[in-house]
């Protein structure tokens, strides 16, 4: 449902599905995020990571969350869906490590409106997000909510 005009909450197909582009997660990017936010050896040091619970250098789970946000944001921008935030993530599971070199993409599935009139300016939609690697292995399984702007809101 690619569109050239903005899609507001009222116009949204509330059971739409989307697939993001793929992004490759490099060792450099894993170390950069981890050095700043999650400096544990299996995210910063390849040889230490090989002896760890994970068995190799892998991204922090929170780094995968950040990557999910980028993939999701890019889908919303491409589709011109008027995303204006999210204030609740009911569930998130880290299923498998995202190792260096992984090619990750997001599969999004809208699950209907959570609240039609959450606010004069927006509605809230439920959205399942799966982050998968190049082998279609499930890396992260998420149930989130997205605030989508109402038509005629003055929030912009």
């Amino acid at each position, binding site marked *: 449902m690619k569109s050239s005009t903005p899609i507001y909450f009222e116009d949204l197909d509330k059971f739409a599905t989307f697939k993001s582009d793929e992004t490759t997660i490099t060792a450099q990017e894993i170390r950069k*995020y981890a050095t*700043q*936010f*999650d*400096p*544990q*050896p*299996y995210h910063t040091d390849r040889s*230490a990571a090989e*002896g*760890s*619970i*994970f068995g190799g250098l892998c991204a*922090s*789970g*929170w*780094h995968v*969350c*950040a*990557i999910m*946000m*980028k993939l999701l*944001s890019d889908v919303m*921008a491409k589709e011109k869906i008027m*995303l*204006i*935030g*999210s*204030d*609740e*993530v*009911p*569930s*998130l*599971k*880290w299923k498998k490590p995202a190792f260096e070199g992984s090619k990750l993409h997001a599969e999004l599935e809208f699950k209907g409106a959570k609240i039609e009139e959450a606010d004069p*300016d927006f509605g809230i939609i439920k959205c399942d997000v799966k982050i998968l690697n190049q082998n279609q292995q499930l890396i992260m399984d998420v149930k989130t909510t997205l605030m989508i702007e109402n038509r005629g*809101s003055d*929030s*912009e």
Partner: protein
Amino acid sequence: MSKASFLRSRWFEDIPVGEFHVFGSYTLSEQEMVDFGTSYAPQIYHTDPDAAMNTRYKGLIASNWHLCSIWMRLMVDYMEGYSLGVVDGRRNGAGLGFQDLKILKPVRPGHTLTFSHEIIDKAERILKNKWGVIKSRNEAFNHKGELVMTFTVDILAERNPDNLTK
């Protein structure tokens, strides 16, 4: 033994429900918020202080995932390298997931957040004949004492091998 090495050295069985920790405080700068937003959350209210004035947030706010990332950093610092345990035989493991992440107030440049962590449950299940699961409630308060973020997270902790099937 330092407090951090004590915390890291315990088996699952030694960690009491109800234990409460304050990881510390952190002040967010405008630049780091913009940097995070530019990399991961490219909405203008995370990336452009001027354009953000014209959004419903009336200014720059931190990405939810930036707040979670800062929580992780403060936990690692508090534990002085937290899951080093998995590499060198000590006893803290990876996260399995979280529930009920809620963002209750916008966080703006210059705000100072204080992060707390309370053990609220220990699961009966044993994973790979090695790991137990510790559930904690995590909260962040701003400089006015307002709750801005809350979630519960499940983290592995190693079971005492004496209690496991040999």
